[in-house]
């Protein structure tokens, strides 16, 4: 994705609806909100598997992280609206992309060129599910090379499935997931600890991506003075 922080809606600029959907991801908040539960979950699991914490502590943190994941999964719009009302809307404005993917038979104007099928921010749920499936693959992977192989598959999945989404990822953006997976092969960890690495790596990657995007966004868009009321004269 072209990360033009001067114009947050830039990139994928083939229609107003698609630009609006891309704008939803321009501040990095969706990635931060999605990445946090994964990171907490993975870190809690790893700590438990290394006997750093008790099973009860792991269970409690896992429950909190799972609740966080489901809150993000089902209440993404409300959680993100709450955050964006404090960060994004005062800086670069508010837009609500189309509620449903637009019909390929044509838009409201009925022009000769039908509007492209716009992606909608509610498909954020699909993205969340994709990440979850991708990072959970390793539960079936085994041994030292299970995590690197599974993380490589996850990287390819995320790259391919995000191609036509409002927030596409480039190869170099997703490659740290696979590289981190291969790096874990050098670690001397018990098998049950390895199972939590994908959630940890995935969560850290999402959080890092989101934080980097947010910092760039905030630097490009200092909070402006309030707008004058709309004149009707």
């Amino acid at each position, binding site marked *: 994705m072209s990360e033009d922080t001067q*114009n*947050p*809606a830039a990139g994928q600029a083939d*229609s*107003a*609806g*698609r*630009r*609006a959907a891309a*704008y939803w991801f321009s501040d990095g908040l969706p990635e931060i909100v999605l990445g946090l539960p994964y990171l907490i979950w993975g870190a809690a699991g790893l700590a438990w598997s290394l006997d750093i914490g008790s099973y009860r502590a792991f269970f409690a943190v896992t429950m909190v992280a799972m609740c966080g994941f489901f809150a993000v999964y089902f209440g993404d719009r409300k959680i993100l*609206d*709450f955050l*964006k*009302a*404090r960060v994004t*809307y*005062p800086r*670069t*404005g*508010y*837009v*609500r*992309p*189309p*509620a449903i993917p637009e019909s390929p038979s044509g*838009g*409201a*104007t*009925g*022009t*000769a060129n039908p*509007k492209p099928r*716009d992606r909608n921010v509610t498909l954020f749920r699909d993205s969340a599910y994709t990440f979850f499936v991708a990072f959970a693959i390793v539960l079936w992977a085994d041994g030292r090379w299970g995590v690197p192989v599974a993380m490589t598959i996850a990287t390819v999945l995320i790259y391919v499935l995000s191609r036509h989404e409002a927030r596409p990822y480039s190869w170099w953006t997703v490659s740290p997931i696979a590289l981190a997976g291969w790096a874990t092969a050098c670690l001397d960890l018990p098998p049950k600890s390895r199972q939590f690495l994908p959630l940890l790596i995935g969560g850290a990657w999402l959080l890092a991506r989101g934080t980097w995007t947010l910092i760039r966004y905030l630097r490009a868009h200092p909070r402006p003075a309030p*707008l*004058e*009321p*709309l*004149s*009707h*004269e």
Partner: protein
Amino acid sequence: MNDRLQDLAQIDRLIHEPARLMILKILEGVEEADFLYLLREGGFTQGNLSGHLARLEEAGYVGIEKKFKGKFPLTVCRLTPKGQRALAGYSETLLAALRPPGK
């Protein structure tokens, strides 16, 4: 000669103005957008956008509503069904008139 060419005389002049057409096209692609988003997307000045929105609202093409997201006040604009019909009619007339003869 394109027999639809004379239809251009009946074209909706309220929409024919570039800034207003831009506003309607942006709003057509989204459910709703606030004043600041339109300002940035269209590259308008505040006064300019305010004036055009007021005219579009007066014609019933755009609905304007004051909302709050958290404690942040928003001036939210959306294309009305009347505005959608007007934009569709405008596009049809313009495209028909500009179509090469015989097509």
